[in-house]
């Protein structure tokens, strides 16, 4: 089932190492997102898979056949890979129909023409078949680029920031259409993006690339709830960091204890808490729980952001629905989920 496999791929431009020991698998029909800041090596990875860059170290298999290895480099035109570029790179001198026809495998011309029409239908661009690319909007160009990339019936589809050139309003519609088309075609899709929200929305699996290395790979929800490092945790939104020491099976925090997960006794750890994983109770003065006090309240859309100062001075930020009773200086009791992610203190530096 696995359609694209990368084994220990490393790459350097001169002295600069852009990829280090990257391995990943993408199955048919699966969308795998590569998430990372610019310069993290994402685009190089795509170019290596496409064969536009010669592999230096490691191995790349498509459909269990090696396309690039130690002594082997299949030129791009012989790999069945589709590539949708960030600026779409439509051929400006060809109309929409002939752009799509360009990649169509040889065959009887009526069959090829019909296949072009079918593809344009799939992306709802048939009525633009005779249009020149520069007369199309960004979203239309993107759909033509997608149809063109599908013309070769690729086994692997590579998308390089495919939605970043679109208006926000347009992006959502184009995104869901694109994904529907790709799922229907049943290709293994590797998509590069620097937008964590987008990655979480479209990915079946995602890999966080940082400084040429994969920090963490998995389904988007896993990465959100179980980040293994601070950079991964911070990608998906603000997060509170509370230091502590593992005692027994738990970590002592200013408002009580949380599960220590698999960390060993005595380890210095950081407990990670997203704002929505914290909530407040009124302090009734009788319970023995350590009290905290509200240090600040800011409106943030439908929610309020509340800053709470624990007894030992630790500041926590949380998001909650506004309650009229809350005032700055009020005593409250902090409650959190029992099992937030816990990482080693020394792993919070990337």
């Amino acid at each position: 089932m696995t359609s694209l496999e990368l084994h220990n791929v490393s790459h350097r431009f001169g002295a600069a190492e852009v990829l280090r020991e990257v391995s990943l698998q993408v199955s048919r029909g699966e969308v795998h997102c590569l998430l990372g800041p610019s310069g993290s090596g994402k685009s190089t990875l795509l170019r290596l898979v496409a064969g536009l860059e010669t592999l230096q170290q490691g191995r790349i298999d498509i459909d269990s056949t090696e396309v690039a290895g130690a002594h082997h480099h299949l030129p791009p035109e012989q790999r069945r890979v589709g590539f949708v570029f960030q600026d779409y790179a439509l051929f400006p001198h060809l109309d929409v129909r002939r752009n799509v026809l360009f990649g169509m495998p040889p065959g009887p011309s009526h069959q090829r023409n019909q296949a072009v029409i079918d593809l344009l239908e799939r992306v709802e661009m048939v009525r633009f078949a005779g249009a020149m690319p520069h007369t199309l909007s960004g979203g239309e160009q993107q759909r033509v680029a997608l149809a063109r990339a599908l013309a070769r019936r690729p086994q692997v589809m590579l998308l390089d920031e495919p939605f970043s050139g679109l208006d926000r309003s347009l992006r959502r519609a184009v995104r869901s259409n694109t994904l529907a088309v790709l799922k229907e075609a049943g290709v293994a899709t590797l998509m590069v993006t620097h937008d964590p929200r987008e990655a979480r929305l479209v990915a079946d699996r995602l890999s966080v690339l940082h400084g040429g290395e994969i920090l963490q790979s998995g389904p988007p929800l896993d990465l959100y709830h179980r980040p293994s490092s601070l950079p991964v945790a911070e990608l998906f939104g603000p997060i509170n960091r509370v230091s502590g020491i593992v005692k027994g099976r738990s970590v002592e925090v200013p408002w009580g204890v949380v599960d220590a997960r698999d960390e060993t006794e005595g380890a210095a750890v950081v407990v990670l808490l997203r704002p929505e994983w914290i909530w407040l109770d009124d302090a009734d003065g009788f319970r023995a729980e350590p009290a905290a006090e509200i240090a600040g309240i800011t409106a943030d859309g439908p929610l309020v952001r509340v800053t709470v100062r624990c007894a030992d001075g630790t500041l926590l930020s949380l998001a909650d629905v506004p309650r009229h009773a809350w005032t700055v200086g009020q005593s409250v009791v902090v409650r959190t989920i029992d099992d937030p992610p816990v990482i080693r203190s020394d792993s919070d530096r990337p």
Partner: protein
Amino acid sequence: MTARRPVRWDTLRLAAVFALVGLPLAAVLSHTGRDSDGLWSHLAATVLPGYVYNTIGLALGVAVLTLLFGVGTAWAVTLCRFPGDRLLRWALLLPLAVPPYLSAYAYTDLLQFSGPVQSTLRELTGWQRGGYWFPDVRTLAGAIVILAFALFPYVYLAARAAFLEQSVCVLEVARTLGHDPWSSFFRVALPLARPAIFAGLALVSMETLAEFGAVEYCAVDTFATGIYRTFNLPDPHALTAAAQLSALLLLPIALLIGCERLAQRSARSHPTSVRHRELPSWRLHGVKAALATLLCLVPIALGFAVPTMVFLIETWRGGDRRAAELFLTLGRNSLLLGSLAAGLAVALALLVAVSRRNSPTRFHRVLSRLVGVGYAVPGVVIAIGVLAPLIWLDSQLDHWSQVLTGVGTGLFLSGSIVAVLYAYQVRFLSLALNLVRAAFGRVHTRVDDAARTLGATASRTLREVHLPMIRGSVAAGAALVFAETIKELPATLMLRPFDFDTLAVRVYHLASDERLSEASAGALALIVVGIIPVVLLAKIIDRSRPGQHADPREPTS
């Protein structure tokens, strides 16, 4: 960068073109130490000082005049508004259409003792022969004036481009700091444009050193004419001595190339402001407007209108009685040479540009630049350089053919149009190359990537993607080479096969025999062909104003 697969082929191709273009220069240089049986020392003792004096005098005189008119007109049409400025902007390029040798013929005809100007003067004043002074065209001063008004557009182009690139803000700041337009021109605009103007001047000087026809007609002995004359000496060492003179001429040319490169590099200054609004336009009225118009009209008249009128009138009055029949043969020969040279140049330029694109390394970049270096080398020098290796090759061919088949091949290469075409490539390849390279530069490499991932091989990508996208520039490159080839005189004169005349050669011969009225129809044809590059240049410049080309795509029309 990473090593891409086709690197070796790209390197081979580039190196082959480089060797082809470099061989004539190497051949010229290789003669420097050779013995010419006293011919060289004889030349050095007798005519060389005159060559040096005249060449330097010519170059300096032309430089000063082109500087004045080139910068003056560029400033006027770029930053002032006066009646006719838009038309003058491109009309100032027209002198490029008239090869200097045609100007020389026209002015000699016009200003000679029996010419219309002096005759009219005598009629009006009653002066007698020898009783008055009249400027003589066929002197060093005459040559300077003729060359200056033929070549000033190079400086005009460079200066205008530089003025256009200057940010309005810089000029406006100068105004707010208390400088009037005049003083802000000298204190700000001119210093900023200096590198570009210098590069234009370097081009003018290269053309001056290379000029053969006009200088020869004006009877001024420069290096170029000296080389030609030495080459034609009935002496077994003539070629060697001519090559030695050529090698000497290569020295100042190398210097000029260096200057031009340096100037070009610093001309790419880093603008402190990226705002490119419509340039300020100082509207001129009355006397000032009239002066500005006059400033532009004079060089256009002297460089284009007057010579063209002379040939028009001469054609009208008599023309070449054998014109019709000769014109067919000559035109056919010129067309043949022009189209072959243009096709070859474009093919070679594509080869170089593609290799350079596939292998984006420093080595390939430098090599692909060196390929274009022949544009600075005078036609006479290239002719000498082409002839030496071809003669050697011919003798080898002849020898082996004699040995193998018993039949000699004679001057198979050096006596055929192969030699002329070879010389044209060395001299004009850069014209096609610059355009093709610039056009390739505007095609984003992602388009290549897209084509390759869509299953196209490198050659299909070139055929179906690159070529259709850059065809406008390819055609422009071909047209430029075509026009320059048709106008080219010295190399054609020296290398053409026996009894193979072109328009330019015929006009030269007729003019040398003082049969100008017969040459006028041919001269007019040459001027018409010369207008092609002028129109192309004007179009290219129109597209290159920063901030004014919103559409980076190659126009498909």
